[in-house]
């Protein structure tokens, strides 16, 4: 067999008669919208930070070795003195900013499950400056969720995003964490930084900072710029020049690095991060019950008037698949246009209000544009995605529409919301 034979083989196999498609475009739009909402609400800064790192690698401006001495696993680390915790309670955020630069305020937060373990391993907080569009993302990982690796070659290739460019820079060390919703993330450690409250710290490509706040427990601060529009990109170019984020060399313009002043700013923020659960997230809904063995795994929230509002979505499931059930409830109209019967959905009533639900999707959704002033979505995976394996206990919940109709709702006034999203 030669190349011609392989071509013929592939053509022949591709001509296998296909069964009717189960692909649901309407459901993909719905899931995609939800994911966009999530990223906008909670994780909006991460893609930009990644993009900045990509740009650096593409331009080849990152030197192969910076300030570590011998490569390999020879790092001697001094952890911070916080008490290590192997999981966080998603309903009670674990970390908070103790100090932010003038103009910044905490915009959103989330506590996330890792992809491999049934533990809640990462707490993320985003602070932003409305006037400048500058964002700072704090990610605090539970003990054991991150580990320092040896030389890391080309972190871009580890990303799931289909960015069409990459380079071949080797970093002396990296930080491998399972704090990402999709899969394990890899962050190269660019250079040693001054200690953060006695803990070993490192500068990151793109201008971030990582430090070991407790034994085996890592935190990261990442600066970025809000948005992805043309105007935002212009803003990002400007901020590359100011040294808020790093930038590639373009034509005659040299590459930029994060300024010393901004590095000092990040270190000051890192020094004052407070650890330990304090305030509870409150929700505008309450689930009737979860199947045995299920737990809340992921929560997105936004601070408002002294409360942490759980409007960024809640996921729950068994350890086998901790995101089997997803519920979001936010103020009606806050997500823009909503129609009760988009293509592929079926009309339904949820708590007396018109809504819709999908029937063909792998993870079907139920939604209502305005239930007692709230936009509501419920999605439920009866099977683990990409497999035919049922999610244990999911069938007992019935359908997403059933879950939606059993929700207890508390209206639009956060003062009436509950800190117990599961009865």
């Amino acid at each position: 067999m030669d190349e011609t034979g392989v071509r013929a083989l592939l053509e022949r196999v591709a001509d296998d008669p296909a069964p009717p498609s189960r692909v649901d475009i309407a459901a993909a739009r719905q899931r995609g919208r939800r994911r966009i909402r999530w990223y906008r609400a909670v994780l909006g800064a991460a893609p930009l930070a990644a993009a900045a790192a990509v740009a650096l690698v593409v331009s080849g401006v990152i030197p192969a070795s910076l300030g570590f001495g011998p490569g390999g696993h020879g790092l001697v680390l001094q952890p911070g003195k916080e008490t290590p915790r192997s999981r966080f309670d998603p309903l009670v955020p674990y970390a908070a900013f103790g100090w932010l630069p003038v103009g910044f305020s905490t915009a959103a937060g989330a506590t996330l499950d890792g992809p491999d373990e049934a533990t809640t391993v990462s707490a993320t907080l985003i602070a932003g400056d409305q006037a400048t569009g500058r964002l700072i993302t704090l990610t605090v990982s539970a003990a054991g969720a991150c580990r320092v690796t040896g030389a890391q070659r080309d972190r871009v290739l580890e990303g799931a995003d289909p960015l069409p460019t990459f380079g071949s820079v080797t970093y002396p060390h990296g930080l491998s964490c399972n704090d990402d919703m999709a899969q394990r993330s890899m962050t190269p450690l660019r250079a040693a930084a001054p200690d953060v409250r006695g803990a070993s710290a490192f500068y990151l490509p793109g201008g971030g900072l990582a430090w070991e706040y407790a034994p085996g427990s890592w935190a990261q601060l990442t600066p970025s710029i809000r948005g992805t529009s043309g105007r935002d990109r212009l803003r990002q170019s400007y901020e590359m020049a100011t040294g808020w984020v790093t930038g590639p060399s373009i034509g005659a313009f040299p590459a930029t690095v994060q300024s010393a002043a901004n590095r000092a700013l990040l270190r000051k923020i890192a020094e004052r991060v407070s650890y330990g659960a304090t305030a509870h997230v409150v929700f505008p809904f309450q689930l009737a019950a979860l199947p045995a063995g299920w737990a809340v795994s992921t929560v997105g929230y936004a601070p408002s008037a002294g409360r942490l509002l759980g409007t960024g979505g809640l996921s729950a499931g068994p350890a086998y698949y901790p995101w089997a059930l997803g519920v979001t409830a936010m103020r009606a109209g806050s997500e823009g246009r909503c129609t009760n019967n988009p293509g592929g959905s079926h009309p339904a009533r949820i708590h007396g209000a018109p809504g819709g639900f999908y029937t063909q999707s792998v993870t079907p959704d139920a939604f209502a544009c305005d239930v007692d002033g709230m936009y509501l979505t419920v999605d439920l995976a009866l099977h683990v995605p990409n497999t035919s394996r049922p999610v244990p206990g999911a069938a007992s919940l019935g359908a997403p529409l059933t879950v939606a109709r059993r929700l207890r709702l508390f209206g639009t006034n956060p003062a009436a919301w509950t800190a117990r999203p599961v009865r």
Partner: protein
Amino acid sequence: MSRRDDEFTEYVTARMWWLRRLAYLLCQDWQHADDLVQAAIIRLYTHWGRAAAVEHTDAYVRTILVREYLGERRSGWARRVSLSADLPETAAITGDAEGVLDLRAALAGLPPRQRATLVLRFYCDLNVDQAARLLGCSPGTVKSQTAKGIGALRRTLQPPGQRPGDQTSGPGGMEVQHG
């Protein structure tokens, strides 16, 4: 629906045939292929602004699909969950009527990355550099994966008794072209 939704729906509807077949070639199971396409178009929707703006949207979507497939194999779920029936490493040829089944089994017997390399090179007609960029590896790795893949297919599809190592086997070492 919004303009974004309209454009997305129009594109995906038009390219569904191609997407499903590409996914099927990668994973060798229609149900799994549909799940892969579903996951890929969700991701596509979130990146639609960028995808619609690039010169070759098909190439962008193909990258999403292949990386979804390879990422799934790398992820914890692939380790913990049996994604699809693993077909045997080799398949015997017993007659023309079973030819397609044998071809499919031979393809399924390849490691995922090797199979993806062959699909990209010889079904999607990417050159070595393009495939290397998509797979996130060096051109040399693409060449070696291609050679290994073709060699494995050749061995698998060779009639019993003619495979290398068989007592009655003929001369092996067929030339493999790189390009």
